[in-house]
């Protein structure tokens, strides 16, 4: 049984249809990457999985349970956490407070969890009492990811984690994604930087015009010149 | 038959005629006006003959106040309905118009009266001068007030306008030298009141003779004709304006300010114009009010009567729609006066709850109106008449 399955999903915003039938799955512990041109609906798929948009058709299951259209508050309890692309930190809260918000639903002391996040992102440990809004793009991305990891999710969803970052930081972020995955957390990410993300991913999906176009192991997709030409801009 | 019935019917026919002219659109002009005149006269005469004097008198005063509030609501519609300006300080312009008209038309008190009444000025001018002055002064106030505040966004503008209304109220309450505040300013002259008395010397003899049977208590019939005429002029003027290129820009500004600015329209100027035009109309409404109630003080223009009630009228009728504004005004005025009957009818129940409650009837009515507003906002936000699709008459 796959950890996450998305079956035949059709949806959009208001009256505007964006997804025209998307299927994908993520297995335990793997990294799956969704790539494709702008406007393909990649971010929309993420929002739909996480309950921010309701599916018009099709369904989403997580760990065997149908979570289609479930509220984010419930989804988070089941081990699925999400990092949006923009506005992904609480700017007036400190780094530490941002992390605490990630584990709000828990009633236990959070010290151990916070320490684990700080081990993963040592740069954040130095800045734990700084306001998240005053940090650089890369650091903010780390805060956002840290916040999502506080609940020890089984699956972490990342929406364009490398967007707007300098190349050095892009390397760092992808390194961290690999590190996170090594601890057993599955990762589903949407990425504009197709090359880097497919290099990292176990499997990839190419999405265009709201539908799956191609699917396969990351390396295979990377190597396929057709895919590269049509969807990845060469 | 009471000889007063004839002149009364003729006067009552005026608002009915104007109403029919507006409603019967799309017919050829001559036919339309003739038809309207005939039907109006017939209707007025019929009502005068069939209904008891007390009832028809009540209907007249109802139409009168409803029409005055309709003018005010039309003013708000220009500001909010058409331009999206969030003005919760309607009372300021209403009050300023009323007091201006009063001061222009009153004479300065002399002799013994001067001990009781203080005024900043009193020109003893005719009614129409007061009416125009009311509009002008309200417009000037809007200009002064709008310059610093119109650039503010939504909620901030709302608070600023609340502040202005409070400021105006405080001034009329505390500045004795201005308009006798907090005491009422009394004896505001009523236009053409001579017709219900011994006749107006500046009118031809046959007119005086025709209206001779009227007594002073018939004055509302006369005034309703005047008010209906003003309402008619304001309404048709606005309907024209909204279909003009100017009106188009206003609507564009409300829909999408950035787009309007990008097309090169001076958005700030248009907002100011709409604000001022709306204020002028509210001032005119104030003048009509003052000359009807004859004595005014700051309490007439409190947040309920001066602002909230008018917003309820506009929201119920449907904003962005002049017909809706007028309809809403009449409807809500009907509901407001209806609550008076309701509270009277419920008197025994109120007594049972508490002996002091019946005398606090006005506050029960206030609660009912507040509930009405909540009802509208929750269940009928678009009002009774939806915003109409407006087709412009001329190309830009």
């Amino acid at each position: 049984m796959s950890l996450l399955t998305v079956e035949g999903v059709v949806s959009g915003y208001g009256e505007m249809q964006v997804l025209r039938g998307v299927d994908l799955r993520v297995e335990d512990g793997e990294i799956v990457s969704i790539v494709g041109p702008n406007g393909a609906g990649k971010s929309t798929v993420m929002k739909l999985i996480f309950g921010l948009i309701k599916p018009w058709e099709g369904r989403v299951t997580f760990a065997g349970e149908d979570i289609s259209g479930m509220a984010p508050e419930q989804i988070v309890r089941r081990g699925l956490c999400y990092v949006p692309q923009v506005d992904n930190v609480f700017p007036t809260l400190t780094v530490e407070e941002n992390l605490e918000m990630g584990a709000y639903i828990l009633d236990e002391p959070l010290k151990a969890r916070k320490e684990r996040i700080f081990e993963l992102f040592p740069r954040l440990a130095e800045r734990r009492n700084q306001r998240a809004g005053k940090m650089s793009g890369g650091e903010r991305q780390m805060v956002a990811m840290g916040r999502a990891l506080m609940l020890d999710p089984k699956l972490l969803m990342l929406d364009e984690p490398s967007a707007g970052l300098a190349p050095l930081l892009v390397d760092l972020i992808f390194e961290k994604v690999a590190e996170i995955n090594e601890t057993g957390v599955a990762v589903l990410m949407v990425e504009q930087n197709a090359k880097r993300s497919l290099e990292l991913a176990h499997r990839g999906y190419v999405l265009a015009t709201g539908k799956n176009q191609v699917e396969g192991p990351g390396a295979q997709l990377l190597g396929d010149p057709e895919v590269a030409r049509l969807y990845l801009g060469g | 038959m009471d000889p007063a019935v004839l002149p009364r019917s003729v006067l009552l026919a005026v608002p009915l005629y104007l109403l029919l002219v507006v409603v019967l659109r799309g017919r050829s002009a001559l036919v339309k006006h003739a038809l309207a005149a005939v039907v109006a006269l017939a209707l007025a005469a019929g009502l005068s003959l069939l209904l008891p004097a007390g009832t028809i008198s009540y209907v007249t005063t109802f139409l009168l106040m409803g029409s005055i509030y309709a003018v005010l609501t039309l003013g708000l519609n220009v500001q909010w309905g058409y331009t999206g300006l969030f003005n919760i300080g309607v009372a300021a312009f209403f009050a300023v118009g009323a007091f201006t008209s009063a001061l222009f038309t009153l004479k300065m008190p002399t002799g013994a009266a001067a001990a009781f009444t203080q005024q900043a000025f009193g020109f003893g001018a005719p009614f129409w001068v007061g009416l125009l002055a009311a509009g002008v002064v309200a417009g000037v106030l809007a200009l002064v007030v709008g310059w610093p505040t119109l650039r503010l966004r939504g909620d901030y503008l709302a608070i600023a306008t609340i502040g202005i209304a409070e400021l105006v109220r405080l001034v009329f309450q505390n500045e004795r030298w201005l308009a006798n505040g907090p005491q009422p300013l009394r004896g505001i002259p009523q236009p053409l009141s001579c017709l219900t008395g011994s006749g107006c010397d500046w009118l031809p003899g046959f007119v005086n003779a025709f209206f001779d049977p009227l007594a002073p208590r018939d004055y509302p019939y006369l005034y309703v004709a005047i008010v209906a005429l003003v309402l008619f002029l304001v309404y048709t003027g606005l309907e024209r304006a909204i279909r003009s290129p100017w009106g188009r820009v206003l609507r564009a500004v409300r829909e999408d300010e950035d787009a309007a600015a990008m097309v090169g329209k001076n958005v700030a100027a248009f907002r100011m114009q709409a604000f001022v035009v709306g204020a002028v109309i509210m001032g005119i409404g104030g003048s009509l009010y003052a000359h009807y109630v004859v004595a005014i003080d700051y309490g007439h223009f409190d947040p309920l009567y001066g602002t909230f009630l008018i917003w309820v009228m506009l929201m119920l009728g449907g904003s962005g729609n002049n017909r809706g504004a007028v309809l809403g005004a009449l409807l809500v005025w009907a509901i407001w006066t209806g609550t008076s009957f309701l509270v009277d009818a419920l008197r025994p129940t109120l007594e049972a709850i508490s002996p002091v409650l019946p005398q606090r009837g006005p506050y029960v009515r206030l609660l009912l109106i507040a509930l009405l507003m909540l009802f509208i906002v929750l269940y009928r936000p678009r009002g009774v008449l939806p915003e109409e699709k407006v087709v412009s008459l001329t190309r830009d």
Partner: protein
Amino acid sequence: MVGARPLPRSRALRRAVSSVLGSRWSLVGLLALIALVIVLASSAQGVSGTRMLGLVVRGVLLGGVLALGALGVTLVHGVLKMANFAHGDYMTLGAYLALAIMSVLPPGRSVFGLGFGYEFLVALVLVMPLVGLVAYGLDRVTFRRLRQRRSAPVMMAMAALGVAFGIRSIVYMVFGADFAFYYQGRPRPVVELFSGVRVRTDQLFILAFSLALIVLVYLLLERSKVGKAMRAMADNPDLARISGIPTERVVFWTWMVGGALAGAGGMLYGLDVQLRPEMGWWLLLPLFASVILGTIGNVYGALLGAFTIGIVWQVSTAFVNPAYGPAAAFVVMILALLVRPQGLMGGGR
């Protein structure tokens, strides 16, 4: 930028002027200027230093009460993105609920050195959660539905006005339109603070209690989970949902805290001055002036704004008709909006 031409002198000058004008310091400067004008005007009118000092002290007092209301307004605006025009009437509600409670309790002797008995304190303790619950209840029935529909701000504002008038009408119906007092004919001890400035001990209590509540709110927002969640929701409501924060529960606590503060503020104001059904509506303008001056949504700003407005209000009575006090607050607010619309604590320089 390569090849960019320098801006024409006039445009560069205008930009420089507006950037200076919009800075935080120019707003502070404006307030200092107002203070200077007030001092000059009052000395020109021969107002004594003692009186001025006394007015400043009264202003601080009033500021404490305003702060309680302003905190509620700013919290609600931050978390719910709504300008609550009914907040003044929540204060009225608190004041009159206390009157009702105190009328059924047997009156006691004055508490040590103050002008009120135990029943006032009992009412204080009861009224705060009561008003909080009423505020939450009203939200459930009206504002929440509008939020879910993503209604335009004008609808929310009209709903708030409807609630405001509704509460006021009920107060009128139950208590009538006359003034009311918590205590009449009871001696109200006075104490001299310094150099001839006198205050009532009640007023010291009011200030102390206001400050205590303010400290509690600070602790709530900085140290408690719910308080941090309130700040998180004010920052980014979508992310708050995404993080799994139970937003409805946070909304509940926002109204409880805001309502409780309003109820306490109303009671304290009633103790100091008097009760009238319009008391809260008349405070609405100074409340919003405080909040806007201190940047809407910013808790510290609300405090700063409240004390500033309170002082300006009281001090202006030295040379204008005291009835115009709220008007002075209004003028300061307008000037602040013109110079720096984002307020003292807002973003930017």
